């Protein structure tokens, strides 16, 4: 300690903190990416968003907007045509004058190459979702790509949101091992990778002639520093060593509130925290009266006011207010422990010794698993344990690490789980609720079975008409709210800390991330 203080004062004020400028903006990042190839990674990464551009992207209100496409194809503008054989054709018109960073023109051949590579045998992308429904791509001219789908596919408009692969660089190569591309992808975006120091940082630098014009982007360099430890990341923000931290944990928000140099933006998110009720593992959950009793027994308003510090609103279903498909005309369940007790009585669960309800000699007792290391989540789990105990339900909380949790839910080996889904930008909820989408075929880990709902969800997936699809999804939300297959708790609000001097920050509720409009950012 003494040694530290002594030497430190010797080189004091040399300073490691630099204020954010248009020359350099430093981002504190919670992990080092595996790869910068957007098709190989498990989530859309902020760093890639600055380098590689999709045909479309999602804006701050989760609207799908054109990026490298001239517009978003729809039924109305003729970009989407339904074929009599049940398939559909989507015509993408590309923005003209866009070049890859090496000067090669960006054309429809790159779109076709991307589809062929992902569907081909020589590449192992993370997901082939949607691409597997494409039969072929035609390229009548350099700026037109016609994508032929075998069946109607509603989320077609975000099919190329991750971007495209450059044909002239990757054709004929083993893309999994193409480390030159995977570590420093050739893109069309405002930045390119200047340096990647393993374990330390990735440095992006502005490209000389971005297609939006030479005055954009304004910030010359972006540095993503890898700081896995949350406390360290927040300390760096406070000391001025980093300027931006995306997804600030909620329990850190108050620590940052007093800093004048930092603004913590709140964006209503597209994720919702909920309790999954596994009917297969714990059969009492199959009784809708039990599920309704559980949701009535929880004072969710109190959770959001106290544990969540007012940062997040109570959620009432899987589709969040930020989505165009959202409706609030659904059944809601206010905090009503008396009603919960009545429902449990009706379901045959009567008070037993030591206050735990039982039926046929078996107690109403289950285990609630959740991920360790999230203070808020652990507190919510304890509150649930306490409140359900009040109505005679015995809950035991179990904490696991993230990888273990994934394995447990995938194998259905849990009674109840507290977690959230980051929902796709497209409101496709089939994988979570359709009867035939239990693991491994999907993520219906409530093991909830409702044939009418299942039919409705599949119908909505095969509808590209926005108005018709909205109707179907509104009805699906009503059905989900009546059946309570899971207990929605709160809608996740994104907190992003950025410099107070940063202009044109917009935020983003999806996993496109906050850097989607980085070309507009400017320090003033």
């Amino acid at each position, binding site marked *: 300690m003494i040694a530290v203080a002594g030497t430190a004062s010797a080189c004091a004020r040399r300073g490691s903190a630099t204020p954010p400028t248009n020359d350099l903006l430093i981002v504190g990042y919670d992990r080092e990416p595996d790869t910068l190839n957007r098709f190989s990674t498990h989530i859309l990464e902020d760093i890639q968003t600055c380098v590689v551009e999709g045909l479309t992207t999602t804006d701050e209100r989760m609207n799908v907007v054109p990026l490298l496409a001239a517009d978003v194809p729809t039924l109305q503008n003729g970009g989407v045509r339904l074929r009599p054989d049940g398939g559909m054709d989507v015509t993408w018109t590309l923005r003209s004058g866009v070049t890859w960073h090496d000067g090669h023109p960006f054309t429809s051949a790159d779109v076709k190459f991307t589809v062929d590579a992902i569907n081909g045998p020589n590449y192992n992308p993370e997901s082939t979702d949607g691409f597997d429904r494409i039969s072929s791509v035609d390229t009548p001219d350099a700026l037109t790509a016609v994508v032929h789908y075998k069946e109607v596919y509603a989320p077609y408009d975000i099919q190329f949101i991750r971007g495209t692969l450059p044909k002239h660089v990757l054709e004929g190569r083993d893309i999994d*091992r193409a480390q030159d591309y995977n570590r420093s992808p050739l893109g069309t975006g405002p930045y390119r990778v200047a340096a990647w120091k393993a374990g330390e940082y990735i440095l992006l630098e502005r490209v000389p002639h971005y297609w939006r014009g030479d005055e954009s982007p304004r910030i010359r360099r972006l540095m993503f520093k890898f700081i896995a430890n949350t406390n360290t990341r927040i300390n760096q923000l406070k000391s001025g060593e980093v300027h931006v931290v995306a997804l600030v944990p909620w329990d850190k928000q108050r620590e940052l509130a007093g800093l004048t140099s930092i603004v913590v933006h709140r964006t209503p998110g597209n994720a919702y925290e909920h309790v999954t009720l596994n009917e297969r593992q714990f059969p009492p959950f199959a009784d809708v009266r039990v599920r309704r009793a559980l949701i009535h027994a929880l004072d969710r308003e109190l959770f959001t006011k106290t544990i969540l510090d007012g940062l997040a609103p109570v959620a009432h279903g899987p589709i969040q207010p930020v989505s165009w498909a959202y409706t609030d005309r659904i059944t809601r369940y206010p905090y009503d422990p008396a009603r919960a007790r009545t429902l449990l009585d009706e379901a045959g669960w009567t008070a037993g010794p030591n206050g735990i309800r039982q039926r046929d000699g078996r107690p109403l007792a289950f285990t609630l698993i959740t991920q360790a290391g999230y203070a808020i989540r652990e507190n919510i789990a304890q509150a649930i344990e306490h409140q359900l105990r009040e109505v005679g339900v015995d809950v035991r909380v179990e904490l696991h690490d993230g990888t273990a949790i994934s394995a447990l839910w995938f194998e259905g080996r849990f009674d109840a789980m507290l977690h959230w889904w980051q929902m796709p930008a497209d409101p496709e909820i089939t994988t979570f609720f359709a009867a035939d989408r239990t693991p491994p075929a999907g993520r219906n880990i409530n093991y909830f079975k409702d044939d009418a709902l299942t039919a409705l969800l599949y119908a909505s997936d095969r509808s590209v008409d926005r108005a018709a699809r909205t109707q179907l999804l509104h009805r699906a939300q009503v059905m989900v709210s009546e059946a309570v297959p899971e207990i929605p708790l709160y809608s996740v609000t994104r907190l992003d800390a950025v410099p107070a001097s940063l202009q044109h920050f917009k935020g983003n509720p999806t996993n496109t991330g906050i850097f989607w409009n980085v070309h507009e950012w400017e320090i003033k």
Partner: protein
Amino acid sequence: MLRFLARRLLQAVPLLFVISGLVFLLIHAAPGGPLAIYLSNPNVRPEDIERLRRALGLDRPLWQQYWSWLAAFAGGDWGYSFSDGRPVAARIVERLPATLELVGVSIVVALVLTVPTGIVSAVRRGRWFDRLTTTAAMAGISLPAFWFGLVLQIVFAVGLRWLPSSGRTTLGGGDFVDHVQHLLMPVTVLAVVQASGWSRYLRGSMIETLGQPFVLAARARGTPERDVIVRHALRNAIGPVLAIVMVDAALLVSGAVVTESVFAWPGLGSLFTEALARRDYSVLMALLMLTSTAIVVFNVVADAAHALIDPRVVDV
């Protein structure tokens, strides 16, 4: 001496083989695997998971996976990382300098603290210096490294803004002063924790040795007290401490896991944390084998060093 070394190293081979099997079983017994991380993405379909499982060879029986890993590893091929597809050896080599820098400096600083502290508190047992260092050592042993590290950060980086709170260099920096500034806090954490333990061992060992008849004899011969302590007592007392220092050093070389994570130090410790969270089996196996080998080798080195100081040891 050479035969002694060769015999000790040869004995280590079957030991490492057994360790590799146990470690392999252990890391595969942890729930989840390299693909578990993909499950949380709703766009990754079951077909995708199956396809990736086959592509990574995770669909084969466990003994087959172990056998092919062992055959390749023995031949010097450490395989590819499950998370980023790059060669494991390359991932380890690029992290090694950072760890050697941090651990090397920390061990030197810890020894500089240990030796005088251990000697003086043994010689002046029960006096104020001994009581002070005993208290300090207890504190050093009891402090959780992550907590100690965070407190240093809050004081010197956030509060006083004297030192960078994490990383190895500043962008555009990297000169000597920059390196020293980044090293100060993590080295303090590691050195204080290690020296606390080591100085206790040295103190105990010195006290025992100082009570031996040969020390009394040396004093009776009129040997100066300084020589009695350094040439007679210390030389005998340092052996057991050296063995402990070497094992600790081996553990540190494979990564000061907690300290590196707190200070985002780009060494093997952070790599281990990442690989563990991702269940990156190939990287985990390589790191754990590296640790085991380092412990074996450092033990042999400690024995050899001990033998040089005290020739009686070779017969053991």
